[in-house]
């Protein structure tokens, strides 16, 4: 492998990881943008999502990497798995908002954030209780198709991850930019009281943000399983922390920022793993975070102070 091939390969790997982090980072940013709340339960909604996805795939009779599907059955199974996982995670997100966070809405201070940490631990332990603490072999029905690009290799799973991520991020961008509810969401993020006085049902907007964020985390959980061929109760912490870093790096509250931040974190992780050592990935990722925060406290695409004039 020449240096160019190594670089190309790491771009492929990095963009795949990055797409997953971006999907996850969007959930942090959507909720933060509206409530200025860091939702730590998001870490483990992602993890639960990958378990739900695993059960859905198993329900189709798949296990491990032994059953390979092609053509329509493959597309059907994947569409169903993404749809069920995203809806189920979305419902979990809405439940967390409606029944746990909304009663705390009027309480100032860190109570709501602490609550999300609590919820995160509850989800974490529920999964251990329900499925045990061993890591699970994730069903992967994708054929082992791959295409050489120079000396690098592009696999079907990467193409799938990019396609799904592009579709979801494009959909979200359209929703936030051009639909009535999406515009209400941006208005609420900029000035909740004014939005309310325009007749926007702020509770509905908040619920939508939680639904979308959690659904994207669900998609991220499924992607994690397809990419790494395993899942475990522990995966939420590492991926969640990186995705949160991605959101802050891009400018928390900023939708394109979360996408950019996610891709950057993915690329940094891939390159530092290839050129230095995997053990250094976290050091490098979080050092870059610290540097960005020192020199651009609002993140790459964020604004230093909200302009509410």
């Amino acid at each position, binding site marked *: 492998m020449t240096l160019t091939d190594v670089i190309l390969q790491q771009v492929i790997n990095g963009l795949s990881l990055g797409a997953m982090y971006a999907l996850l980072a969007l959930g942090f940013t959507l909720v933060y943008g509206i409530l200025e709340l860091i939702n730590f339960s998001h870490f483990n909604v992602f993890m639960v999502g990958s378990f739900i996805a695993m059960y859905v795939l198993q329900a189709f009779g798949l296990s491990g990497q032994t059953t390979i599907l092609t053509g329509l059955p493959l597309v059907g199974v994947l569409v169903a798995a993404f749809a069920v996982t995203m809806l189920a995670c979305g419902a979990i997100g809405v439940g967390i908002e409606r029944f746990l966070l909304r009663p705390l809405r009027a309480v100032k201070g860190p109570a709501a954030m602490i609550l999300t940490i609590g919820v995160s631990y509850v989800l974490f332990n529920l999964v251990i209780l329900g499925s045990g603490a061993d890591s699970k072999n994730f069903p992967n029905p994708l054929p082992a198709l791959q295409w050489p690009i120079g000396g690098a290799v592009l696999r079907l799973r990467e193409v799938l991850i990019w396609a799904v991520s592009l579709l979801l991020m494009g959909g979200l961008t359209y929703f936030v930019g051009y639909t*009535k509810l999406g*515009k*209400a969401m*941006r*208005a609420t993020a*900029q*000035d909740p*009281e*004014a*939005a*309310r*006085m*325009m*007749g*926007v*049902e702020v509770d509905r907007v908040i619920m939508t943000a939680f639904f979308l964020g959690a659904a994207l985390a669900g998609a991220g959980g499924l992607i994690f399983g397809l990419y790494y061929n395993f899942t475990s109760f522990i995966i939420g912490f590492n991926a969640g922390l990186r995705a949160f870093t991605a959101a802050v790096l891009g400018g928390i509250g900023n939708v394109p920022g979360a996408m950019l931040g996610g891709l950057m974190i993915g690329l940094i992780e891939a390159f530092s793993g290839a050129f230095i050592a995997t053990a250094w990935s976290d050091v490098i990722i979080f050092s870059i975070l610290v540097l960005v925060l020192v020199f651009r406290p609002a993140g790459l695409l964020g604004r230093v102070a909200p*302009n*509410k*004039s």
Partner: protein
Amino acid sequence: MLDKSGRDGSALLEFRSVNTYYGDLHVLKNVDYFIGKGEIVCLLGGNASGKSTTMKTIMGVVRPHSGEVVYDGQPISKLATNERVKRGIAPVLEARRLFPRMTVYENLELGAYTQPRGAQFDEDLERVYELFPRVKERRTQLAGTLSGGEQQMVAIGRALMARPRLICMDEPSMGLSPLFVEQVFDIIQTINRQGTTIFMVEQNANMALSIAHRAYVLQTGVVVLSGSAAELRENEDIKQAYLGEMQVAPT
């Protein structure tokens, strides 16, 4: 007697012995207002008199502790803000409060949030653009990049997009140059003549009383004076407290 704006002496909005609290702080104390259909009614008062609380109580952001807010003959104290906007109450908020990182057009769309899209929306948009050609020119610009006067036009246009029967304005002249203040008050009169009732909180008592039909004076949450605008303009206490002050400290 009816005039062009449909004034017939019946109430569009009433406060009946309204009391509001922020925690232990008693803000509005047994307040009564009567805003007749087609009127411009102005609310004068210094800082912390309860003017903004009045506005928030009308919009349903603050709920009265006791008493009743009646709109078009029906009690609305328990209605959600969204429902009030649907019924035709639209605000022009203090300091305008546009959505700064959305375009002028999107701000107008949000004004019409409770209204169906379609022919009616286009008609309302056309009306706003006619009233404010400047707003039409700026429609693709981010609202936060506009001058204060332009922002005020968008804020009034945004309220009109809700097809309101009652517009509640919180300090429409705040932070505007004298030239713009005059324009804004002209527009308010025009809108009123086209049939919309106006309830306006204003520091610029001189200007406000020159276009209002009636006025209330609020002091630390109590209505201390009310009457026709002409009467209040001649009232010695008002001259002392508001009209004189405005000449010393023009906004």
